């Protein structure tokens, strides 16, 4: 089903042929892949429903090689897509037909660890988990996608990745302070703090770049803030008859001014799947479980933890399990972080969504999802980042049953529409990519999309960087509108045009 979507997206953008000789001259023959079988490694990201084999894949070793590759593609009018570890869940790094994939997986050096300034400078291929490892045990890097052992920081920057600790600590965009970026014309610039400083004068192009899904350029060096590791961590898992009760605990906790490091809910189906996969010891008859993790100073954690337990009990918790050791804590998280992978235990296929809702709408949204599941005759497992209202409904289906995959996809689409109708968003952390772009008009008006396009065109007027992603329909940039007139201030010498 992906191919047809993909075909249409570069419509209107003329493309040249891949400058293979140049790419080989830049990276050497071993790091330019053109054989079809080898190229299939790059045909999909973590969202396997979509697959496109690119014309070539290159594996540059350095920022200067990336810049040379991009410049060569620019001259040859060839579209390109940057790729990190390929764990994305929205088809954000899906290749373009006839285009080049720039894999950053060889650029995995940690360039500088500066604990005094709480900064780390890394290449884009470094994994998320390696960053916290490099600055530990005194410090850590909070955004922690479930795929953190594999996913690359360059991909995190492109997608503005989240994770379970983001309610308290913020998202990737809150932790990136500077990026060396190769722009679509092959030039290199630094967005944000050149030395990792905050508030560099000028437009916050870094803020616009992070989360732009690889459509504005490619980061070749990333400077991140890090923070002192918490002194204490307390983790509890509580069981309830319904997800609504667990949701009410979350609201009570937040309203009381407690800011847990993480709050996660799984429903009965998700518990069943993860038990089969991890044997974490969660009861199969629980309607929902809630994980609450407090972190911070010893005194603050201890005081607030009792409050959290009281809220669980007041909302009818049928059981409460407090992690007594790091091993027990790890087991609680193992079940949660394995949730997507574990779905294979209860269903041949699944389709994951990433909608966000205002947290207070949780009860009605769950009712609507349940109703939709019944309407489509499909099971939906639910896993949420409860603090920030980010839902991951998992639509279970069997692709071997004719028509079921299509039905599952349609149901998943109905679910994100519900999220938007309730005042939420299409995606909290997975990105729009190719997968959700058709829903963009549900959330944004044509005027909104047009403003997005202005930003994109400022960076990539030719539309050759990760084309066909984010925007619902292909569109061209055109020239900057309006005839150029000398501004009165320019005539007066007050301003100057570059």
């Amino acid at each position, binding site marked *: 089903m992906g191919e047809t979507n993909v075909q249409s997206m570069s419509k209107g953008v003329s493309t040249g042929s891949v400058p293979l000789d140049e790419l080989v001259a830049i990276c050497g023959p071993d790091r330019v892949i053109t054989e079809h079988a080898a190229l299939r490694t790059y045909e999909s990201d973590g969202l396997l429903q979509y697959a496109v084999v690119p014309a070539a894949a290159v594996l540059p070793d350095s920022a200067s090689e990336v810049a040379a590759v991009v410049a060569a593609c620019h001259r040859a009018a060839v579209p390109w897509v940057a790729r990190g570890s390929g764990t994305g869940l929205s088809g954000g790094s899906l290749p373009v037909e006839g285009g080049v994939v720039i894999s950053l997986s060889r650029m995995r050096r940690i360039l500088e660890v500066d604990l005094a*300034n709480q900064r780390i400078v890394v290449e884009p291929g470094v994994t998320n988990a390696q960053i916290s490892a490099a600055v530990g045990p005194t410090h850590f890097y909070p955004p922690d996608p479930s795929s953190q052992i594999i996913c690359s920081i360059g991909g995190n920057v492109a997608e503005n990745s989240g994770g379970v600790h983001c309610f308290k600590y913020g998202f990737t965009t809150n932790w990136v302070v500077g990026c060396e970026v190769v722009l679509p014309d092959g030039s290199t610039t630094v967005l944000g703090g050149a030395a990792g400083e905050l508030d560099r004068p000028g437009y916050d192009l870094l803020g616009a770049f992070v989360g732009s899904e690889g459509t504005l350029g490619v980061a070749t060096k990333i400077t991140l803030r890090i923070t002192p590791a918490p002194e204490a961590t307390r983790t509890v898992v509580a069981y309830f008859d319904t997800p609504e009760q667990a949701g009410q605990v979350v609201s009570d906790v937040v309203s009381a*001014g407690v800011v847990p490091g993480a709050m996660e809910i799984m429903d009965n189906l998700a518990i069943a799947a993860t038990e089969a996969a991890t044997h974490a010891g969660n009861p199969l008859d629980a309607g929902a479980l809630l994980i609450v993790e407090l972190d911070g100073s010893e005194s603050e954690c201890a005081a607030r933890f009792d409050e959290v337990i009281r809220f669980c009990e007041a909302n009818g918790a049928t059981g409460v399990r407090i992690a007594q050791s790091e091993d027990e804590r790890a087991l609680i998280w193992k079940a949660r972080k394995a949730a997507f992978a574990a779905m294979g235990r209860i269903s041949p296929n699944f389709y994951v969504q990433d909608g966000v809702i205002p947290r207070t709408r949780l009860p009605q949204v769950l009712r609507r999802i349940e109703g939709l599941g019944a309407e489509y005759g499909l099971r939906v497992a639910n896993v949420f*980042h409860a603090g920030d209202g980010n839902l991951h409904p998992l639509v279970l289906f069997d692709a071997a049953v004719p028509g079921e995959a299509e039905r599952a996809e349609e149901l998943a689409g109905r679910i994100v529409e519900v999220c938007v109708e309730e*005042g939420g*968003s299409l995606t909290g952390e997975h990105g729009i990519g190719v997968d959700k772009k058709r829903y963009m008009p549900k959330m944004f008006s044509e005027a909104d999309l047009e*403003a997005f396009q202005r930003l994109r065109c400022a960076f990539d007027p030719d539309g050759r960087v990760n084309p066909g992603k984010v925007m619902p329909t292909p569109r061209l940039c055109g020239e900057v*509108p309006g005839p150029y007139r000398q*501004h009165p201030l320019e005539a007066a010498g007050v301003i100057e045009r570059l």
Partner: protein
Amino acid sequence: MKSETPSTYDEAAELLRGATADGRPVRFRGGGTKLGWGRPVPEPDLEICTEGLDRILEHNAGDFTAVLQAGVPLAVAEGAFATAGQMLALDPPLSPWGGAGDDAAVEAVAAGATIGGIVATNDSGPLRHHYGGVRDLIVGVAVVLSDGTVSRAGGKVIKNVAGYDLGKLFAGAFGTLGLIADVTVRLHPRPARTATVVARSSDPTQLPAAAATLAHAPLEADCLDLWWDADAGAGAVLARFGSADPGPRVEEAAGLLGKVGGLAIDIDTDDTACWEAQRAAQRGDVVVKVSALPAALPAVMAATQALGGTLVARAGLGLAWIQLPVADDGAETVARIESLRGALAPAPCVVLDAPADVRAALDPWGDETGPVGLMHKVKERFDPAGVCAPGLFVGGL
């Protein structure tokens, strides 16, 4: 200069469309507390005031979000949020005088800084240490572009990656990309109690060390500031803790500071005034904002000392506001600013407040570095006619 006060986005759009058609420059005005910031530019033909866009459109207490029109004074918004035990964790100075000033001048900015102006200028205060800046607190934005397009980006939920993050692009753009019509903000619980540990010293080398000790401690201070007054030869590190019971953490912080040695340490549980003073010290006759790394704090203090200035710094972030004494001669003030820039290069040193002759004699933004060409391309896409606050911003944007 004509002044207009639209009360709807359509009216604002109509005004901007007209300005674009005529090629006449426009500036945007909120509370009017920071009109002197940026490059000096001729008075534009039209000023669009956000006074008529002053509604709190939503306060979703259960979801800890709010939608504020640009003209809502921050103080008014905070009052509304406080009734629900919440706050917008943004506390820049609300007037150019930090509360003082003569009657007429105070009257002119009585309502104080508006959310639109604060977002447009990326202003911030001590809470930035823990809660981040404007860019970290806005989750959605509505803007009116110079061709009359009204566009939204972001959303009303605290987590959202759909579409481009135009909120960050417009934050701190000084109105040069268009009018910010409303912003959706993330709120936080207002701490039931706060307590501040204050460590005073007359030794300027000791204070950055004290600040670094707290910056690396896992105590999660809400604010971590430093001040230094060169003339008085006195300064302090201040760390504020907020929660239902901040006592244990503030005691722990005091203990850590005790180990630094040579500091006079007090715990202040009625700490509003000392933080008001930190905010107020970000404004003055001549104020330069320094963007450095935290470890550069000793150099920033030395530069302040050499020029006889006063300093407030977000010690854990590396941001500092240096007030320089006003010289009788504007050229002398310019020389002091240039000396400061020379001493701290390449850290950006942006002149916020300064007399007109000083601003005219130097670029308040400092030397152009970074992707200024790309910024011009962004400007050309959003404001092709070049009517939104032309010339005010970095590189003449």
